[in-house]
């Protein structure tokens, strides 16, 4: 039976986008769960439990044991940059390394849809000429969302994507993410401390403990 489950992954089910099996990192885990295609799953848990680290492990940025699958293919088959372009984490406090906003978007500035995307989260095109040092925390967060999605990842890991946004921009970002999810048949894991937002945006919700993820009843 063990042999069988190794050779033919049980996650090779056509609606399963992303699978996690016995994932352990630092002192957390083992966790096992799946994200289905076009599914948005909420992740909550008290501060410091390791939600961000879970996302980092899922993008292969920190060492872990266990297995990760994307469309039934194990993460070790991909080289790490390719994996991170498909399973992308957007951190709560995104960082920028050039002086100009536009320099971070060189690869996609000419794409037709780019202006549209900027507009969708409340920017006009001249934001590209802005200095990064002039941006507010909320502006950085919204721009980071666009930057993170420029590789069109199939799995998006959002770490409190609206933590620095006012209610108007929160609505914009929520709409933008749902639109992305449906258009690309992507899966989203959404970390938030706002129960109402998770209720509103996600299909189901997982609550993180040190050793297990508990499916929340709602």
């Amino acid at each position, binding site marked *: 039976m063990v042999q069988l489950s190794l050779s033919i992954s049980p996650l090779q089910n056509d609606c399963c986008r992303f699978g996690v099996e016995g994932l352990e990192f630092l002192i957390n885990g083992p966790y096992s769960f799946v994200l289905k295609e076009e599914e948005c799953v909420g992740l909550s848990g008290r501060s410091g439990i390791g939600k961000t680290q879970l996302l980092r492990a899922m993008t292969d*940025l920190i060492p872990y044991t266990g297995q990760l699958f994307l469309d039934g293919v194990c993460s070790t088959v991909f080289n*790490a940059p390719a994996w*991170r*372009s498909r399973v*992308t984490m957007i951190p709560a406090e995104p*960082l920028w390394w050039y002086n100009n906003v536009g320099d971070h978007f060189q690869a996609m500035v000419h794409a037709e849809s780019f202006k549209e995307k900027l507009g969708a989260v409340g920017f006009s095109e001249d934001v590209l000429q802005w200095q990064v040092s002039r941006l507010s925390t909320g502006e950085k967060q919204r721009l980071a969302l666009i930057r993170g999605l420029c*590789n069109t990842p199939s799995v998006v890991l959002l770490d409190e994507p609206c933590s620095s946004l006012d209610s108007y921009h929160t609505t914009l970002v929520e709409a933008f993410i749902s639109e992305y999810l449906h258009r690309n048949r992507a899966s989203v894991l959404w970390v938030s401390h706002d129960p109402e937002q998770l209720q509103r945006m996600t299909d189901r919700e997982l609550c993180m403990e040190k050793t297990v993820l508990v499916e929340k009843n709602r």
Partner: protein
Amino acid sequence: MDVIALSVLDLGIAAIFVCALSLVSLFLSLGLEWKILIFSCRMTAQLLFIGVVLRYLFADSSLIMVVFMSMIMLFAAGREVLARQNIRLKGVIGYVIGTGAMFISSFSVSFLALLVIIGVDPWYTPQYAIPLLGMLLGNTMTGVSLALDRLTDQFHKERFIVEQRLLLGQTWQEASSDIRKDSMRTGMVPIINSMAAAGLVSIPGMMTGQILGGTPPIEAVKYQILIMFLIASGTGFGVISAIWMAGFHLFDKRHRLCLEYLTVAKTAKR
């Protein structure tokens, strides 16, 4: 023209200047007074020692002795490179990277210069090989230690930016390119600056020595130009290979930045 031999008294008078500097440092509380004295004494002892060693080496120019001598110089340079870094690569590898980079560049450049350019016979004649290697190692050491210090310091400070770039699907080469380029520049700037100032502002040490020793200026200048070219290329290749190796070492196969390979030194010479 004969060389005017220096007496112990002459050197003693020059040493008074250093003692005066040490006193001033004490009054200004720079905290350097002991360092100035200790390293002055150390320098004197080292040079006297090498003087004696060279006398024996020149008398008996065997390949084994030259290789042995150059290895000692190389390992001393490797130790210096490590000692000048605030944040170091942990374990033997930190030493191996610095020493290896200097070995690759200094030794190959001096070997080629001795064999092809100067064409001295035999190629390992200590009167040529040891001073040439010494000049190259000294300068490469400065470049490599500056570059590595910059690299580890930047990775330590900007690790989150590197991780952010990795998160966006960049390879480790892309994510660290700015830091690596910056470190390479830091390592090469001193030699480029000294090429710019050579002859205009500064009369390089080797040329000074030759002219004081009675060599016609034009001959001294030709040797100095050769040395400058060798130093510049040796330093440049040394810096590039050190940064390349260190970068390779600091990322694992899954393109993760492994800062656990770095350790903060309690005391670092600057």
